[in-house]
C-alpha cells in the first residue's frame, strides 16, 4: 500500500459506504416527510410554529438549553419518560418535521421538554422560572437566565409584563423585572412544545 492512488481509493471507498448509509439514504428515505392532516378539522400535526415561537427556538439554541434538556421521548422499554409525565408516546421523525435543526439533546441534567408546553402551560411561570429557577424549584441547579430580563425603575404604572417575584428573588423597592423580546419569544417557543398528538405510526398510548 505504497501508492497514493491505491491508498486514496481505499480511503474513499470505506468512507463512502458510511456517507451513503448514514447521510444520503436517510436524506432520501425520511428527509421529505409531510405533516399529518386531520381530514375532518383540517388541523395539521405537527403544527407549524408561529413567527414568535420560531424566533424563540433561536433563543433556545443561542442559550444552549440543549446541553441540559432533551426533546425526545424514547420507547417505553428504554426509558420512563411516559411514567414521568413527559410524554404520552415515543417521538418519531415526523414530530421534528419543522425543527431545522432539531433540539433532541443528549443530556438530562434537567427534565425533558418535548411537551413542556402542555405540562406547564403558563407564560408567567416560565418567565419567573427563567429569571430565577430556584424561586420555582428550590432544588434546581439550573442557571438563571437574568440576561434575558431587565431590572428597570418603575415609571408611573408598573408594567403589566413585570414578573411577580417574591422574597430574595424580588428586585429592589421601586424597581421591576420585565422580559426582553428574546425572553418573550423563548417562552412562546416553550409553550408551543406539544407533541402529544396521535400519528398513524405513533398512536397515543
Amino acid at each position: 500500500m505504497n501508492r497514493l492512488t491505491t491508498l486514496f481509493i481505499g480511503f474513499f471507498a470505506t468512507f463512502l459506504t458510511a456517507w451513503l448509509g448514514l447521510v444520503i439514504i436517510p436524506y432520501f428515505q425520511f428527509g421529505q416527510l409531510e405533516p399529518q392532516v386531520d381530514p375532518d378539522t383540517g388541523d395539521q400535526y405537527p403544527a407549524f410554529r408561529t413567527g414568535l415561537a420560531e424566533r424563540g427556538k433561536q433563543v433556545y439554541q443561542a442559550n444552549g438549553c440543549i446541553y441540559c434538556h432533551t426533546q425526545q421521548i424514547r420507547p417505553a422499554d428504554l426509558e420512563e419518560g411516559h411514567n414521568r409525565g413527559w410524554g404520552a408516546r415515543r417521538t418519531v421523525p415526523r414530530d421534528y418535521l419543522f425543527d431545522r435543526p432539531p433540539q433532541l439533546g443528549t443530556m438530562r441534567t434537567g427534565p425533558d421538554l418535548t411537551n413542556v408546553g402542555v405540562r406547564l402551560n403558563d407564560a408567567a411561570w416560565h418567565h419567573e422560572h427563567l429569571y430565577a429557577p430556584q424561586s420555582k424549584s428550590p432544588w434546581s441547579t439550573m442557571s438563571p437566565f437574568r440576561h434575558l430580563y431587565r431590572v428597570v425603575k418603575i415609571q408611573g404604572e408598573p408594567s403589566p409584563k413585570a414578573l411577580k417575584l417574591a422574597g430574595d428573588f424580588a428586585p429592589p423597592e421601586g424597581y421591576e423585572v420585565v422580559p426582553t423580546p428574546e425572553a418573550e419569544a423563548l417562552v412562546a417557543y416553550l409553550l408551543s412544545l406539544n407533541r402529544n398528538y396521535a400519528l398513524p405510526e405513533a398512536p397515543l398510548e
Partner: protein
Amino acid sequence: MSNAATSKPVSAPLPDIHDAADRAAVDASCRLPVLSFFASAVFWLIVGTVFALLASIKMHNPQFAVEIPASLAHWLNQFYPLVPANTVETLNGALTFGRVRPAHLNTVAYGWASTAALGVGIWLMARLCRVQLRYPRFVTAAAVIWNIGVFVGTAAILLGESTGVEWLEFPAYATFILFIAYALISIWAVDMFVHRRPGHVYVSQWYIMAALFWFPWLYATANILIHHESVQGSVSAIVNWWYGHNALGLWFTPMGLAAAYYFIPKVIGRPVHSYYLSAFGFWSLALFYSWNGGHHLIGGPLPAWVITASIVASVMMVIPVVVTAINHHMTMKGNFHVLEYSPTLRFVVFGAMSYTLASLQGTTMAIRSLNTVTHFTDYTIGHSHLGLYAFFTMIMFGSMYYIVPRLVGCEWRSAVLIKIHFWSCAYGIIFMVLILTVGGLVQGLMMRDAAIGFDKIVENMVVYKYFRSVSGVLLTVGHVVFAFHFSLMLLRLGRTEGGPTLFRPLETT
C-alpha cells in the same frame, strides 16, 4: 501485492532519516508552522480550560458568575456612549452556562485538539516522507486563518449566535474560515506525500493522509446539510451525530494513533510489532468507525435500521481496537521500564491504553440494555473525556514533549515540571472519568425508576458535579504548568547542554 508483501518485513520499521544534518534540515523546514500550531494549541487549551471550569462550577453552583462584578459594570457604564448601552447585558449573556459549555467544547476540540493534531501531523509527515516542508509560510498562513476561525466562532457562541447543533455550534461564517485553512493543509499534505523519498510508507502516514482526506468531506457534508440546506429534523439529527462521532473517530483518533504508532517504536528503538496488524487495524477502523454515529440516537426519532446499523458497527469496533492494542503492547513488551525515563513515552502509552479502554467502553455503551441506563447521563460525558482527553490529549502532550526541543534547539527546562504535568493530568482525568462514570450510573438508574422524583435526582447529582470540578482543578494545574514550560521553550529558555530531559537519569545498561 503478494510479491511486495512477502518481501516486506513482518515488523514495520520506522522510515527515518539517518543523516543528522539532513534530519535537522527537515525539522528546520517545519519549525515556523509547527510551532505556530503548537503555540495556538496551548493558548486555546488554557482558554478551553477556563470555560470548562466556569461551566463545571455552574453545574453545582448555578449562582456562580451569573453577572459580571457590579463594580466592573458600573465602570463600563461610565463610558457610555463610547461603550454601547447594552454592553453589560451582553457580557452577562456570554457568561451563561448554555454558552460557556459549547465555548468549552469548541475551543478544546477546534482550538486545542485539532490545532495540536495539525502541528503533530505536519511534523510527522515531514519526518516520514523524509522531505523538507515546501513553502512553510503557506502552512503558517493556514495556522493563522485557522485561529481566526476558532476565534470568530467562539466569540459568536458567547454573543448568542450559536447554531444549537452539538459539535457544530460555530455559525457558517466561522466554519467557512476553518474550512479554508483545513483545505490548505490537506492540499499541502498530499503535495508532501507526492514528493516523498522512495521507500516504505509507514502506518502513521496512512492515518494522517486518511484523516486529512476524511475530515473536510465530513465537515462540509455536515455543515451544508444542517446549516445551509436545513434538512428536516431527523435527518439533521443523524447527520449531526454521524459528524460528531466521526470528528472523534475519523479525525482525532487517526491523528492520535498516527502519533502513537510513531513515538512508541521511536522512543524504545524497536520496529512496530506487526505490519499486518497495523494494516488490518487501519482498514477495519476506516470501515467500521464511520458507521458509528447512530448510536448517539438509540431510541431516538429515527428508523430502526439506522440505529441498528450503528450498533453493529460499534460492536465491530472491537476488532480494530483490539488489533491496535495488541500491536502496541507487543511493541512495548520488554520495554516497559523505558516509561520510567521518557516523558514522551509515558504520555503516549497512557494515551494508547486509554484508547483501548475508551473504545471498548464505547462499544458497551452502544448495547441497548446498557444504553437505557447510561444515555442522557454524565456517563457519556465521562466517556467523551476518556476519549478526547485521556487518549487524545495525553498523546498530543507526549508528542509535543518530543517535537518541541527539536524545533527550538534546546531541551525542556525541568523534569519536575513535566512530572507535575503528567501526574496532575493523569490523576485528574482518572478521577474525573471515575466520578462521571459512577455519577452517571447513579443518575441513569434513578431515572429508570419513575417512583424517584426528578428533584431527588438533581439533588443527588450535586456532589458528583462538585467533585468533577475538583478533578478539573487538577487538570488546570497540569495545563498551567505545561503552558509555562512551553513558553520557556518558545523563548529559548530551555537547557542548552546535556541530553533530553528525562524523568530520571538513564542508567547505563
